[in-house]
């Protein structure tokens, strides 16, 4: 048991790859204190940036040769109701084919505040941003076609928010109030 715990802990502190360490230096040199936070976990590097810097940081990641993130692997929304100041979050996963490293960049968002689209950098963000909008209500400014994607057009609400009920708000419900009475 103890040997296993040690090996698991060793894996947790897996060092960053050489190219990713170089990318890290480059990013920190360029943006410095504008990077609100960074984390390393299981060999993955995460940066938090302010919403104003979102497009600029991602553009830098794409266009700087030392980083060369040519693919947006995925972009997703998230809801953290326990973080009252900024309950929403957008997370982007970048991948570099030429250098073979990955990076995660996220930004906290206050309710009702929009974020600039990155469809101009990677067109593949189009569906991702539409999904983040319909599921979390995050508005992407400048998105060419911000409509509902997976749910129907007349759907009301943002279903992946934590306060949205699992059974939905329309249609048949299970009557939990009758439990034990019949």
């Amino acid at each position, binding site marked *: 048991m103890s040997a*296993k715990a040690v090996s698991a802990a060793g894996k947790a502190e897996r060092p960053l790859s050489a190219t990713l360490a170089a990318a890290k230096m480059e990013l920190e040199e360029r943006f410095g204190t504008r990077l609100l936070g960074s984390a390393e976990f299981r060999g993955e590097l995460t940066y938090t940036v302010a919403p104003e810097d979102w497009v600029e940081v991602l553009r830098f990641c794409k266009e700087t040769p030392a980083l060369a993130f040519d693919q947006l*692997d995925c972009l997703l929304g998230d809801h953290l109701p326990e973080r009252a100041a900024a309950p929403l979050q957008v997370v982007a996963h970048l991948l570099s084919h030429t250098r073979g490293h990955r990076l995660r960049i996220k930004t906290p968002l206050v309710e009702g505040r929009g974020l600039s689209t990155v469809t101009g950098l990677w067109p593949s963000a189009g569906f991702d941003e539409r999904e983040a909008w319909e599921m979390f209500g995050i508005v992407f400014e400048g998105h060419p076609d911000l409509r509902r994607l997976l749910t129907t057009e007349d759907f009301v609400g943002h279903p992946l928010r934590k306060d949205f009920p699992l059974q939905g708000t329309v249609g048949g419900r299970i009557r939990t109030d009758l439990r034990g009475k019949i």
Partner: protein
Amino acid sequence: MSDHNDNAAAASELQGHAVSGRPTLEELKERKARSRRRLEHTGEVMTISMGPQHPSMHGVYRAELDLDGEVIVAVRPEIGNLHRGVEKLCEQRTYHQIIPITDRLDYLAGFVMNHGYCEAVEKLMGLEVPVRGRYIRTIAGELCRIANHIMWLGVHIMDLGTQTFFCICFRDREYVLDLLEMLTGARLTHSFGRIGGVAKDLPDGFAHRCRKAIDFLPQRVAEYERIVKHNRIYYKRAKGVGIFTSEDCFAWRVTGPALRSAGIARDLRKDEPYAAYDEVDFEVAVEYNADVYDRFLVRMKEIRESCKIIRQCLDNIPDGPFVARDAGRTLPLKKNVLRDPAAMIQDFYQVFEGPQVPKGEVYRAIEAPKGEMGVYIRSEGGAKPARIRFTTPSFYHGQAVPPLVEGEMISDMVAIFASIDVVLGDCDR
């Protein structure tokens, strides 16, 4: 090699331009621009709806097409007809209970979806999988890949107008599904992955039957190639159609065989090895013309390589446990639960409480048959994920349809759409 020369000769005869073996990116862009030039002088545009019930659309995908005569001017893809709220559902389940949900994503390669999810959870936990477990995962994953590609081939050829070949492919796919059924107990939705390994060991007689099948399948691939590869109708429908260069693939996140057909030897099995892929010897299938025909060639090569991988796994598979034994995080062996009090307590604990997972977030991608499939998990500690996202290849392939088909003919739409391999369970989640 003589086949290739025949094809090159046929191509120049059929299409009026010589086909070199390895076109450069500029040449590919030029070929792509040739079809897009049709968009310059469009007259009256007619809008029609293709799908979700169109016989040649795979699953419930709908595309609104703007047509000028037979040329596709614009496409607006509509997805979501099969949306089941998988990610919302996963947030209410413990990590063990999510496994059966994952193989409903891409139901043509169910185990690969289990595998990708389990890899992500193991990365989050920092859990090591025993060597035998990794080999069994590799075998099951490659069987799924073969089944997926054979199914793809049958459907793709059926889209181009023949029924018989579809039946041939389905018959051969049965051999693979029989093996998967023997191994996992289910034909399509396997739910065979477990956190820390797999559900069961290889059954008795499996290795023998599996060897017979993988000796037989390359012969079948040769047969498919005899029927399809040198078929003039297929050649004319597929060669030079639906060109998607490597730059387009990066921009639209098109991965898997479509990317490899554009001359990029990108395969997560090689580039970010997982399971037992770093211990077996195989080649990444690459082609260079980035069209429908080369995507077919890539998939045929991949079936052969998968057979090679399975054979090496069967030869080298070591003895030992097939699932990690970690009382706090994995399920006990089912056969021990009613015999061993400790296993019974572990089972109760894991089923009712769930595994204890550290706080953190991970992203893990694996090479699914259709492309790169990633899983993002954010954990706040405890037994349930706070947010889970399945980054499935079909989602992005469905999105990439407009740049693929605009400027092409409407009759090529089904061929191109099939060639990037979209399954709507994977797409809509």
